[in-house]
């Protein structure tokens, strides 16, 4: 019984056997192709996961942060500003915050110092990130010595270490009490780094920000949406290193596809001629080449994506970390939460599988349109 399904399965069967007889050529094609898909997919997974982490971090951020500016630079803000901002209609709460950076000359590392809002740390004690613990080689109950701005040592006991799951943001963190922070930087009382403002109605955030700017022209209110936008653009497709790696990968793919497109060997041309002469239609030849292209490109796509998933989410993007995870000597060691963006994967699919398949079919199509009697004359 003749059926179109038989025709398809027969041609697919021949396509597989056809691929097997050029093992080394097709295997090397598969390896190069998989590598390109792996690099692009790793990048997509990595950036997507970072954006997700950033979004989760910012989910708990205040609606507004108010900073005081002097000559265009960030300056300390008096607590009295907070009292007046609290009085603005629509403001739910104003929390003064203390935070800053500390450079450790001995270890050559930069730490982020932060005073928690709810005072979970007693004076003389600290909570540290896993990166600080690794860098200083200290554990719970050990002592850490920091140097104050007056060059006096400040002895602090490690009360706890943040779990590695939060390492992306807590790696270089030292959480200490307000008293110790003021001691460290010799801050005058009643002065803070900035103010965290929450607004009852999200739609009034812009109005409240405008009122704060009018009330205190020397301040800069920063909206949460602005922070989100900054993170987004930092990790966007256009973001520095990303675009370089992506451009290199895409360029390699174009060269690879072009090489394939122009590389139909004399033997392949002869084979197409033979198939035509023994009764294969041009469409049968194209179907054969289509299956050959799909088998290679789909395998490369699936293997590349699976390897990239493992690389990013199980091995913490080991190949990219030095380039993409920061400039500090304290590299966070963490596992990203798996986030897969179906849209970006679909785009990757269409950008890799389709051009390659087309690059396989087009030269075959050109070869298959030769008259079948050419085989008789070869």
């Amino acid at each position, binding site marked *: *019984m003749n059926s179109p399904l038989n025709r398809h399965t027969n041609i697919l069967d021949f396509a597989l056997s056809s691929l097997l007889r050029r093992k080394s050529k097709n295997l090397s094609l598969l390896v190069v192709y998989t590598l390109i898909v792996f690099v692009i997919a790793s990048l997509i997974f990595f950036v997507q996961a970072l954006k997700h982490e950033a979004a989760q971090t910012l989910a708990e951020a205040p609606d507004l942060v108010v900073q005081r500016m002097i000559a265009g630079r960030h300056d300390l803000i008096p607590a009295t500003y907070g009292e007046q901002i609290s009085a603005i209609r629509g403001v739910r709460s104003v929390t003064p915050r203390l935070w800053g950076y500390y450079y450790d000359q001995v270890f050559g590392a930069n730490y982020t110092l932060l005073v928690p809002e709810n005072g979970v740390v007693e004076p003389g004690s600290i909570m540290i990130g896993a990166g600080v613990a690794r860098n200083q080689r200290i554990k719970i109950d050990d002592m850490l010595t920091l140097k104050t701005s007056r060059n006096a040592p400040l002895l602090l006991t490690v009360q706890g270490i943040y779990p590695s799951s939060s390492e992306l943001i807590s790696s270089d963190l030292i959480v200490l009490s307000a008293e110790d922070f003021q001691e460290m930087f010799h801050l005058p009382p009643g002065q803070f780094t900035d103010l965290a403002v929450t607004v009852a109605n999200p739609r009034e955030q812009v109005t409240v920000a405008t009122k704060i700017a009018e009330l205190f022209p020397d301040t800069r209110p920063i909206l949460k949406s602005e922070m989100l936008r900054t993170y987004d653009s930092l990790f966007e497709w256009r973001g520095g290193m990303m675009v370089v790696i992506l451009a290199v990968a895409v360029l390699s793919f174009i060269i690879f596809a072009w090489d394939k497109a122009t590389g139909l060997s004399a033997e392949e041309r002869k084979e197409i001629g033979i198939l035509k*002469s*023994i009764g*294969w239609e041009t469409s049968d030849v194209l179907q054969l080449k289509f299956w050959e292209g799909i088998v290679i490109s789909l395998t490369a796509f699936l293997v590349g994506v699976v390897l990239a998933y493992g690389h990013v989410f199980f091995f913490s993007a080991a190949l990219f970390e030095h380039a993409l995870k920061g400039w500090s000597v304290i590299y966070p060691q963490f596992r990203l939460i798996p986030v897969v963006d179906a849209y970006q994967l679909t785009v990757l699919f269409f950008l890799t599988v389709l051009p390659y398949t087309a690059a396989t079919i087009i030269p075959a199509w050109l070869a298959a349109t030769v008259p*079948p*009697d050419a*085989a008789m004359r*070869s």
Partner: protein
Amino acid sequence: MIELANVTKTFNADKHNQFTAVDDVSLTIEAGRLTILKGPSGSGKTTLMALIGCMARPSSGRIRLHGISTSFFSDADSGSALDITSLPERFLTEIRRTTFGFIFQQFNLVKGISALENIMLPAYPTGESQAAFRQRALELMELFSVSRHAASPVEWLSGGELQRVAIARALINNPTIIIADEPTAHLDSKLSREFMEMVGTLKARGKTILIASHDPLVYDSELAETVVGMRDGRITGITGAA
């Protein structure tokens, strides 16, 4: 029966290198007979066979096939011959696949795949189940004594074995007409005689056979019923016509 009326094939028409390979040929090839096209190289034998085998279209003239049946034409229904001169490529391909079996001078087998797969090749796009045509291919290998090479790549086969595989491939779709272009050009005398024995087998099975050759072992064979002499694209004489 194949009927040719004033068939001409001109290459590079209206160009400085215009060349007429077949010039005003009229011929009738009877069904079930062995017809030999005899002539030196460049006499137009191969071009004429390509025209008959639906591989190329004539520049002028008509070619009609009698007693064939395809998905779009049945001789029994219409009671007339099928004029293949102006058929679209798709129909020509189907006729080529179902009606003709080709044996090429260079065998034209696909390297890297087994002899069995080579024999099955013309059947892949027919839509027939692979089990059915695989069985037929094995039977043909048995008939031509090449069964032991079923799984061997064709590169491992000798000239005579390649010839047998090529004949088996020509028969896989059970064609009514076999076309062979210089089939003994690459064979020694012993293998050439063996080839003619196989032709005898096919003839006994009722196949119409058309061979182009300038080998006396072929055109002087007692199997040859009609010998058409050709030179410079024209017929110079016909012997043994029915």
